[in-house]
């Protein structure tokens, strides 16, 4: 009897873990509603804040693009970072640990599936909010913006994999921690205003989150007149470095924390 190669198992695990997410993206109607409407409502509220302030039209575009990436951040927090916490609660984590595959492949599958789900939600936010409030974008910058968007999402999900391994050590507080990673991140990443407004220090700290630089670069490309935080080529370089850095860190962290979790019996510790 021949055994499949390690690479084949790795790839099949990625497909297997992303499959339920892709299938469930339209099957679970209640999640479709919350995952689409939550970022959309937040976006609409902020658009009305700018309208009340009689802000120039491009500021509405800042908010809409922030809302698009917000859908990804929510997915990374609630379906990547906390996923092993949910899996442990449901009894899946111990099955993952026993399976002849790696947790890294499972995380990658979660990331692919999650990115697909978020993409469907964020497209809905982009289309609905842009049409409702008459936001227009520079066509010339769309293609490079799309490229930066893809790189930003890659970096973001690498960060998500890192967070997932860290969350293995949390019990009930995982929920609260994920909750607390919302508005503070919206602020630090400049979801609703130009990143430059944060200043060098706060903006610099916020730049550790890939969304900050990605969002600023995308805005510069599709919304002419966006105040520049740093030049696009530097933002691009930083995002590429973040992809590599967070990918390596996530694997190191995953190995270390998986070993610790096995020692401390946290892989099977049910916590609700």
């Amino acid at each position, binding site marked *: 009897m021949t055994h499949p190669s390690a690479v084949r198992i790795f790839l099949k695990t990625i497909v297997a873990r992303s499959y339920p997410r892709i299938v469930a993206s339209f099957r*679970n109607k*209640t999640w479709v509603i919350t995952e689409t409407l939550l970022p959309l*409502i937040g976006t609409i*509220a902020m658009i009305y*804040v700018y309208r009340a302030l009689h802000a120039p039209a491009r*500021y509405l575009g800042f908010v809409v693009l922030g809302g698009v990436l917000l859908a990804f951040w929510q997915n990374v927090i609630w379906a990547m970072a906390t996923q092993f916490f949910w899996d442990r609660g449901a009894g899946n984590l111990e099955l993952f640990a026993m399976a002849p595959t790696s947790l890294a492949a499972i995380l990658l599958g979660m990331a692919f599936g999650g990115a697909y789900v978020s993409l469907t939600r964020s497209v809905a936010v982009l289309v609905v909010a842009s049409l409702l409030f008459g936001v227009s974008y520079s066509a010339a910058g769309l293609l490079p913006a799309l490229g930066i968007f893809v790189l930003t999402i890659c970096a973001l999900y690498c960060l998500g994999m890192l967070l997932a391994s860290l969350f293995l050590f949390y019990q009930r507080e995982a929920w609260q921690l994920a*909750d607390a990673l919302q508005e503070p991140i*919206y602020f630090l990443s400049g979801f*609703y205003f130009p990143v430059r407004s944060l200043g060098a220090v706060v903006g610099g700290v916020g730049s550790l989150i890939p969304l900050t630089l990605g969002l600023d670069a995308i805005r510069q490309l599709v919304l002419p007149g966006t105040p520049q935080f740093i030049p696009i080529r530097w933002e691009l370089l930083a995002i590429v470095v973040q992809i590599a850095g967070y990918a390596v860190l996530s694997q190191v962290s995953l190995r270390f924390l998986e070993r610790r979790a096995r020692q401390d019996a946290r892989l099977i510790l049910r916590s*609700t």
Partner: protein
Amino acid sequence: MSETIAQWRGFKAATRLGWEISSNWTQPLIFVIYSVVRPLSAAFILVVMYRVISGGAPGTAAYLAFLVSGVAFWSFVQYGFAGLSNGIVEDRGEYKMLKYVYTSPAYFYVYLLGRGLAQLGSALASTVIVLVVATIALGLPIDPLHVNYPLLLVGSFLALLAVIGMAMAFGLLLLQAVDAHGYGELGAGVLYVISGAIFPISVLPGLLATLASLSPLVYWMEIIRRSLLGTSAVRMFPALSDGDVLLRLLVTTVATLIAAHLVFTWADRLARKKGLIDMESNW
């Protein structure tokens, strides 16, 4: 008399339970930081948005106070509405104890009121800290010695009754769903848009503005700003006196409570009929 004692005990137990569920996952200091970090960040977001547009021009403190007071007091709705309605669903799905609450001597309303009060306790700390930090950091024209406390307390009491009433009805409606994750936040999000918390409702399109004017939250927000800021408050209803705003708050609160009671009773009957009280849900 014994009936009253039984209800009081039920209320006390529910309040304590709600508080423990909300807060005993960590140390008190961490809990306070957790309670404050989200509303404080939300306030900072609005401050930066405002500063970006106004350019830090003089005379902007009044509008900043409008934004910050709305966000600070919004914690009551976030905790009271989303927290309580999610709590009902969690009691069924996560803790599997809703059926025991139904069979206990305490009235279900009394139990939920206790659970709601615990949520409002968390919100109070958050509101006070956000207001204090923002007033000092941004130089907002809020003087604790000149706050109209009676107006603030009466207005807040009425509005929070409405919030708890809406949350109870919404929470019972959510029992119809197998998986209601995020729906409490979604409901609070809708209320956020039509409450006048972060922008005057006059910027909303006609239908939404009309809907907003029927909500007690709009008049509560107006009362909060008038009582905290006095004559320097940016007003959503400049033609109305304080008494008129309070009267509108009273009327809309009574209407909301009646509507909430009807929805609650209907959803409760439906949940019992369909066997949803002890249904296994997605946890």
